[in-house]
């Protein structure tokens, strides 16, 4: 199953992804981290990927 991955070098910690998918992403020390990649049933990680202003989120390829 594909899972979202944050490029921590690219991330600027703006928090957009955590707003859209609070169960999946959280901001820790000003960087987005995936806290529960399986939680996306309740939100829309594709939208988080599309909205990220620095394109720092991608789907991992299994």
């Amino acid at each position, binding site marked *: 199953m594909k899972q979202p991955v944050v490029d*921590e070098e690219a991330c*600027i*910690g*703006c928090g*957009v992804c955590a707003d859209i998918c609070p169960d999946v992403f959280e901001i820790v*020390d*000003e*960087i987005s981290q995936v806290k529960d990649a399986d939680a996306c049933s309740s939100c829309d990680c594709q939208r988080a990927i599309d909205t990220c202003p*620095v394109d720092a989120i991608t789907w991992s390829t299994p």
Partner: protein
Amino acid sequence: MPFGRRETMNKTPDMFCFQCEETARGEGCTIKGVCGKPAEVANLQDLLIYLLKGISLVHTQGPAEANDEVDDFVTVSLFATITNANFNPDDFTEKIHDALEIRDMLKEKHDIRSEHDAVTWTPDSDDDIRAKARSIGVLDTENEDVRSLRELITYGVKGIAAYYHHATVLGERDAAIPAFMQRALAATLQDRSVDELVDLTLQTGDMAVRTMALLDRANTSAYGHPEPTDVHLGVRGNPGILVSGHDLRDMEDLLEQTADTGVDVYTHGEMLPANAYPAFKQYDHFVGNYGNSWWEQKREFEAFNGPILMTTNCLVPPEDSYRDRVYTTGVVGYPGMEQIPDRTDGSKDFSGIIEHARRCPPPEQLEDGDITIGFAHDAVTGMVDRIVEAIKAGRIGSFVVMAGCDGRHADREYYTRFAEALPDDAVILTAGCAKYRYNKLDLGDIDGIPRVIDAGQCNDSYSLAVIARKLADAFNADDVNELPIAFNIAWYEQKAVAVLLALLSLGIRNIMLGPRLPAFVSPAVLDVLVEQFNLQPNGTVEEDMSQLLSRGDDA
């Protein structure tokens, strides 16, 4: 591998910018702008603003005389620093050189000796410029409330600059406006008390009203009064050019030059209201509007297939797939994008972009149908009797002004849900791109009066104030606040700051502002705005609906 990043966290940030609604974590962008602006550009913008303040300090100490060259430079430079306008470091470095030259020319001409660093600092090289750009900025003002007011004034002045620039392009001038902008900028370098700065903030609102009135006159005398118009959302089979931003003069030049070329013209985002101007409606190849507001441009510019003209903000850093189809002009800039030069006299030369369009396939259709726009003050004045009748008969119960900006954050779905949840007898008054959250919902009409009365671009919020005044007159009300009109305003960039200050200046109370309050408004400054104007943050749709509409019933 965030370890290296964590280590540097307590050091000076790479940049600091909190001028827009989307600023990182609602606090400030410190690594790169959420808008996509790199730290280098943010810092150069800070330095340019600093030098514009230096110019203003010198110019306001000299004899009170208009100087179009200086005034226009300050105006255009401020405009270039608005969110999503210019991402090109070279443009800002060039403007910084120009600013130094103008400042020193004024110093010599008026024999001004100021010791302020913004007036005396002189670089030896571009390296000096970059170093200075990194060393100065918003956080230099340590007192949180003074900083808040200085930035509130500066951003309001940026909005005024944008609107004044549009007016000057159409030949309208009012020397009091650039004079005020410079007086306000100069004041932000000086020791002023919080009370003095609050007073200056309110004056900024007065001047924003004056500037929007000037721009309204400029637009309507050049292109006629907007007329109620059904705008097509679909596409035709010809290649097209998509025009975004707010510059109507660019629209005029492009429509004229594309006539009989086989190339169609469409609007995007804030250019939508161009479809309602009589001078533009006469062109058969002006097809309609394509897509939605600015933040959806990555998907929509890709699908458009043809070239895109960005006349002002909002530009989003492009995907590679369509980057070579985006043209910038005016204050807009992006590294590597083709810039269409300013007009020297007559019109801009759009032949390159027209040639480009001819080589492109037609746009991919995104949607079908129409939306109705064109209800600026002139058109609504013609309907006032009908509106008053509908109010008296109880068929219109309330108006909600839902003007302002749209943005990319998920919490702006609030505005869609709010519009959907409105009672059937409520009418929305709007201007700006905030409308894209609800203007395709098909909310219907009341006695032929559309439930979304769309006055135009963000600056056409002026029209909403005129409409409110006309309704107040019709009901013999002294005060607009006595009418059943509620304000639920969405903001994003600095023109919205000018519009907000304008509404406060017009005496409008109880404005609800969202989706988040500005990061640059400190708790104490917010207290002042709450105390004087009862400005409020958004809550939930249900809470806000009950609060805003019950206030209408009391009136």
